[in-house]
């Protein structure tokens, strides 16, 4: 059996070298385009019929947008609606990357820690920028939870600094690890099925199906978690406690 992590490897399809950078098109990049196309197609189909009594796709799109709007308003307030397009894009990009990656033969973009880290850092840097623009230097008080007694400050400050800095790390690792682990398990189980033959192979096959269904659910959950944490972090920066 070959290395179960082998399928995460990237191979340049179209080598591009610009300004000394290797910007080659690989499977992950192609999948990003597919994701962008799929999300666009989804919204195009949904928006095409724009009726007061919605069609199924339209209603699906509207329900998710409505849901995300609720999320944004709840965590970031009305002012957070400026970030609404960003949040929607984040959610649908991750969700479609997760889901499309589950189709055999495709590549899971979100199993690349560089991609998830990019999104996480994007969210974190955005929250810092928002925090400092809205509150100025007062934004540093985010490191002091309200109601902290003065003598606890030497203890609280490092803890809060660490918890703040851990945010982008956990955000990126959570998504990356979930996707990688899920696909690895699927890969191993499927390999077992092929190796097991007809007599014993059905057992790993059943597990493959079960885990696959689980992975579909995980795809939604991880997209949701990433998005909700993004709104919470940005909301913290806007509201400051």
């Amino acid at each position, binding site marked *: 059996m070959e290395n179960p*992590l*082998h399928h*995460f*490897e*990237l191979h*340049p399809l179209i080598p*591009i070298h610009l300004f000394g*950078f*290797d*910007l*080659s*098109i*690989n499977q*992950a*990049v192609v999948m*990003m*385009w597919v*994701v*962008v196309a799929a*999300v*666009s197609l989804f*919204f*195009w189909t*949904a*928006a095409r019929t*724009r009726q*007061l009594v*919605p069609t199924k796709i*339209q209603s699906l*799109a*509207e329900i998710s*947008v*409505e849901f995300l*709007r609720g999320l944004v308003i709840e965590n970031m307030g009305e002012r957070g609606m400026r970030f*609404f*397009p*960003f949040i*929607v*894009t984040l959610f*649908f*990009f991750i969700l479609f990357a997760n889901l499309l990656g589950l189709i055999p033969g495709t590549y899971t*973009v979100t*199993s*690349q*820690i*560089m*991609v998830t880290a*990019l*999104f996480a850092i994007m969210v974190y840097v955005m929250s810092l920028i928002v925090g400092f623009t809205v509150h100025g230097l007062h934004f540093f008080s985010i490191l002091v939870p309200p109601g902290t007694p003065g003598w606890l400050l030497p203890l609280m400050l490092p803890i809060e600094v660490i918890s703040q800095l851990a945010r982008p790390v956990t955000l990126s690792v959570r998504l*990356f690890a979930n996707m*990688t682990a899920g696909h690895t398990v699927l890969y191993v189980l499927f390999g077992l099925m092929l190796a097991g033959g007809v007599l014993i192979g059905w057992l790993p096959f059943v597990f493959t199906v079960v885990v696959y269904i689980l992975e579909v659910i995980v795809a939604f959950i991880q997209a949701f978690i990433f998005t909700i944490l993004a709104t919470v972090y940005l909301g913290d920066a806007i509201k400051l406690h």
Partner: protein
Amino acid sequence: MPQFDTTFLASLLFWSVISFGILLFLLKRFALPGILEMLEAREKKIKDSLDQAERLKQEAQQLLAQYEAKLTSIHDESRTILDAARKQAQLQLEENERRMEQETKRMLAEARSEIQREQQRVLREVHQTAVDLTLLAAEKVLSRSLTDADHRRLIEEAVQEIAQQAKR
């Protein structure tokens, strides 16, 4: 782990930013405004419909109240009319009875006086006839001298005549 191989770092970051940027632009520019607008339109529509339903309901209740009031007034009116009619009928009945009684009394009195008059007339007539007959009988007795048998026969004749007269 192949994911920690940094060969494609630049490529992945670059294309991620590009793809994400394109998607963000597309959604922000084309998809979201329409959907948000639609959501708001639907919200408004539902709210309007609910408002209208509420308004219609109130109107209906008002109408119902009006109809009920009208119905009550009609009921009252019909009752007064009925009462009046009943009273009228009662009055009429009493009037009729009273008149009938008077009429009866009057007719009775008339009949009574008639009977009395007739009685007196008959009495007078009987008296007259009796006198006439007596005179007749006396005449017959006096005008002839007769035998005892003749007397007897004559008297019987006279009596019979009287009886016949009386019978008549």
